[in-house]
C-alpha cells in the first residue's frame, strides 16, 4: 500500500487532487481510496486530504498518519503545520514552490531523504500559465507521477479529463505534462 498526504489551503483543490490521484490509480486497475480531512474549512484555511493506493481492497478508514509521499500545495504551511509528521524515511516530498529548500528553511530536513525523492516545483505558475488560475493541483499530480513512479502520467491525464471534461481539463493536462517533464528532469539530475 502506498499512502499519500496532500497539504494545502482551502480553494487550492487539495481534496480534488486526492480524488484525481485515486482515479488515476483506478485507471491502472489499482485499488485506491481518497478522502478529505473532513473539515468545514473555508477558503485559505489549512486543508489535508489523503489517498491510499494498493493492489488489493483497502479497508482501513483511518487518516494517513504515516505517508509514503507528501504533496505540499502551499509552502507557507511548512512552518505553521506539522506537514512532515510521520513521513516514511524513504518517502517522497513534492512542494509547490520555486524557491530552494534552503530558502524554504527545510534543506537540513530534506537532506535526510534520498535526493531523487524530494523536489519543489512552481506548480502555481504552471497553473496560471496553462489554466489561467492559481490552482496547482493538476500540475502537482503530474510532478507526483514523475517523482514517485507510482502512477503513469497518462493515468493522471485520464483522471483530469474524466473529472473536468473539455477545455478546463485540457488546460490542466498541459500543466500536468509540463510539471511531469520538469520534475523528471530534476529527478534525473538529482
Amino acid at each position: 500500500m502506498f499512502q499519500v498526504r496532500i497539504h494545502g489551503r482551502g480553494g487550492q483543490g487539495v481534496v480534488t487532487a486526492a480524488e484525481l490521484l485515486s482515479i488515476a490509480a483506478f485507471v491502472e486497475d489499482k485499488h485506491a481510496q481518497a478522502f478529505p480531512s473532513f473539515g468545514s474549512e473555508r477558503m485559505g484555511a489549512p486543508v489535508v486530504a489523503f489517498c491510499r493506493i494498493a493492489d488489493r481492497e483497502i479497508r482501513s478508514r483511518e487518516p494517513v498518519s504515516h505517508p509514503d509521499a507528501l504533496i505540499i500545495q502551499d509552502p507557507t504551511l511548512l512552518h505553521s503545520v506539522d506537514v512532515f509528521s510521520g513521513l516514511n524515511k524513504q518517502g517522497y516530498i513534492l512542494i509547490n514552490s520555486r524557491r530552494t529548500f534552503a530558502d524554504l528553511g527545510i534543506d537540513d530536513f530534506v537532506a535526510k531523504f534520498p535526493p531523487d525523492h524530494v523536489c519543489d516545483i512552481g506548480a502555481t505558475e504552471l497553473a496560471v500559465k496553462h489554466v489561467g488560475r492559481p490552482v496547482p493541483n493538476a500540475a502537482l499530480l503530474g510532478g507526483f507521477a514523475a517523482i514517485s513512479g507510482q502512477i503513469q502520467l497518462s493515468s493522471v491525464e485520464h483522471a483530469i479529463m474524466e473529472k473536468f471534461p473539455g477545455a478546463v481539463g485540457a488546460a490542466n493536462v498541459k500543466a500536468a505534462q509540463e510539471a511531469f517533464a520538469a520534475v523528471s528532469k530534476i529527478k534525473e539530475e538529482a
Partner: protein
Amino acid sequence: MLKQMEGSLGVAQAIALCRPEVVCAYPITPQTHIVEGIGALVKTGELENCEFINVESEFAALSVAIGASAAGARAYTATASQGILYMAEAIYNAGGLGLPIVMTVGNRAIGAPINIWNDHTDAMSVKDAGWIQLFAENNQEALDLHIQAFRLAEELSCPVMVCMDGFILTHAYERVDIPTQAEVDAFLPPYEPVQVLDPADPYSIGAMVGPEAFTEVRYLAHDKQLQALKRIPEIADVFKDVFGRESGGLLHPYHADDAETLVVALGSVNGTIKDAVDTMREEGHAVGSVSLCSFRPFPLAELGDVLRHAARVVVVEKSLAPGLGGVVASNVRMSLRDSPTPVYTVIAGLGGRPITKAGLERVIKDAIADDLPDVHFLDLETDVIARELERSRDTRRSGPTAENILKDLASVAGNRGE
C-alpha cells in the same frame, strides 16, 4: 460498471436506478452531496418521472416523503445529525404509518457542542422509531443496501434507513460497481402500496388509536421487524443472484469461527477492525470480528450464535448513552443473555475522532489480558478531563466546558512548542 467515485455520488446513482418518484432535499453536512447528485440527475433528465423537491427543513423533507409514499409514490430523502432530530417526530410517524420510505443517513455527531464529523449518535437517537436500520461497511455496500432497502421497505411496508458514515464514506472516493438499470429493474419490482390515498377507494389513514388497540398496533410494528430478520438475508441472497456479489444481510463475521475474542461494530470502522484482526492473527491472537449490518431489527439469535463460542466480546461503538455506557453494547449483551461471556464497551470515534488500527489493537489486547474496564473510551485525554473537572470544582462560573477544553488543548500544544 466499475467506477472510481465519491460515495455520495455512487449512492445518488444507485437511488436513481431505483426509480424514485419523489425525492425531498434539504442540505445538511455530510449527506448533501447525495441529494445534490440526485437533483442533477433529475435536471439532466437521466432520472425521469421524479419530483425533486427542495424543502425548508428536514421535518418537511420527511413529511413530503410521507405524503408522497401514502399517495403511492416511491419516496426517498437523506439527512444526518441534527436533521434526524429535527425530523424525529416525522420519523416515528412514518414508522407508525408503515410507509416504505428509504432514507440515507450520513452519520454524524449531534451537538452541543456542534460537530459536523462522524459518529452514530444520530441513528441511535431514533433506533426505536420502527424503522429498519442498515449500516454500510464501505461504499459498495452503501450503494447495494439502498437497492435492497427499497425492496425490503416495500415488501414489508416499513421505512428503511441506510446508514453510511459521514465523510468517511460519503466523501470517500473509492471503487464502486454501479449496476445497470436492467439489473436493478430485475431485482426491484414497481412499488405496490398496501395502503394508498385513492378517491376511488377512500379511507382514512392516521387516525387516533386508543388504549384498546394501541398495543396491538405497536406489536405489529415489532412483528414487522421480526419478519425483516428473515427477509433481510433472503433479499441479500436474491441480490447476490442478480448482481453477483455479497452485500447486506444481517451481519458479516470475519475470522469468527475459531476466535476467542470477537470485536463487534457497525459501519465503516469494520474495515480498520479487519486490518487489526489480520495483524493480530499474524501475531498469534485468536481474534475475529462481526460487522453488524442490520441494527434494527437486531439479530439477537444470529449474533448470539456467532458470539457464543468466544471467550470475550469487545463492542467498538461510535455512540454513547451517558449514564449507561454503550448503546450497541447493551443490545449485544442481550444476544448473550444466557451466556456469561464478558462484553466490553469501547466508545470510539465520537465526533470524528480517528479510530486507528493501533488504538484498536491496544484495546483488544487489553481485553485479552482482562485489563479493560467495562466501559472504555478509546484515546480519551484523561489529563484534559482532570484539569477541567478541577477547574469546575474550583470556580462556580467556570464557563463553557467545550471552550475550556479547547483552550486547554491549545495551551498544552503551545507548551510543547507545536
